[in-house]
């Protein structure tokens, strides 16, 4: 049985690196990533699970890191937007202007990446379903939609879907 109380030293596996942190059981993964690991990609927006700006991948699955306790990430692989440097999704968001103020961008990129990893042939309904987890308060959805479609096109061309 795992028991954690008070402050405890631990390692988080983030973007392929071991990050030493000191955890309290009640701390969110978002806070620990930003305030201890110095990883500023995930953003604190609503901190209530509504906006998706804090989305990271936990064992490849998108989660809202404001609603995940950091202790739950011990021994698991965490990927943040910093870990997606030079990915097709990042390039597509850059090229298509898939952002305005940029605060929500990391969350959208993480979800788009996870979507296209698991469902490269996703149709519009699936894309809407996945990305409705994220809010853009600038309402820059058109650029985001174009970026997602471009990334999908390139990923499909690199790894053609079997018919």
């Amino acid at each position: 049985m795992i028991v954690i109380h008070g402050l405890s030293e631990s390692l988080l596996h983030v973007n392929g690196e071991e990050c030493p942190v000191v955890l309290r059981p009640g701390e969110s993964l978002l806070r620990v990533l930003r305030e201890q690991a110095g990883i500023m990609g995930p953003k604190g927006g609503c901190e209530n699970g509504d906006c998706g700006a804090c989305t990271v991948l936990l064992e490849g699955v998108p989660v809202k890191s404001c609603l995940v306790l950091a202790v739950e990430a011990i021994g698991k692989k965490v990927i943040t937007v910093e870990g997606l440097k030079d990915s097709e999704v990042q390039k597509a968001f850059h090229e298509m202007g898939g952002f305005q103020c940029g605060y929500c961008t990391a969350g959208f990129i993480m979800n788009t990446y996870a979507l296209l990893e698991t469902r490269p042939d996703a149709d519009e309904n699936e894309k809407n379903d996945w990305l409705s987890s994220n809010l853009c308060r600038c309402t820059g959805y058109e650029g985001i939609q174009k970026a997602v479609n471009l990334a999908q096109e390139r990923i499909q061309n690199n790894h053609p879907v079997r018919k």
Partner: protein
Amino acid sequence: MIITADLVYYKPESVEELIQCVTALSDKGVRFTYYSGGTEIVSALRQNKLQTDALVDIKGVQALTDITETNDEWVIGAAVPLNQIIDQMPDSLLAKVCGKIADRTIRNVLTIGGNLCGRLPYREAVLPLIGMDVEVVVLREGQLIRKKLSEIFDKRMLLTNNALLYQIILPKRAFKWNFHRRFTESIGVDYPTVHMVAMATENQVTIGLSGFASFPVYKMMPIDEFNSIKHSLEALVDGLIHQAKTDERCSAEYRVHLLKTALTEWLEVVS
């Protein structure tokens, strides 16, 4: 806002450890909360709406995180996330209802047990379960007890003495028909103003509603009775409309209108 509570986190890795942990905490008088997806608990802790000394994370117990299948039934662990149900049981009515709850990223962690047992009044996952007359397994005082969900669900889960919803046993029962319709105030990702699930088995028709009243409500009737009143919306909503609530989302009158709209759509499908 950070979580200021000074908590102890326990993660048992077998049912035996879980029982041992809970028994020890109970004996010491420690206030504890079962923890799984965390979507509601973390928010509640952050807002100081939950007073607890310890979290017992149940995701280390395999029987709670697996979906297993036999010829006759599905056994769903209470700590199974909604997306796992959607992926593993895509044709089930339960999966279709779960697919409307929260958003996709949240559903990666939001569990069926959390949806049924949480404080939020919607508990939408229960809508198809009562009509299917499912059984559940409850862990109470070290014993696994199987009973009908309808016996321990009345507005909310009635779990006492630190009992834990352990598994949901879903029969592979054919419906004559089923239907679900969910309305929200504006965008799709929101709590429901009315979520109606209607289904008919060989003998019974069930209409379940979430968001309509302050808790999930049901109307059950023998199929012969349904056939005799199905042309009258007023007869179908009788017994339900007085429970409609008014809140900041919409009025009771509007909820009744939405209910009648859903019923009309359903009856068109049925006919």
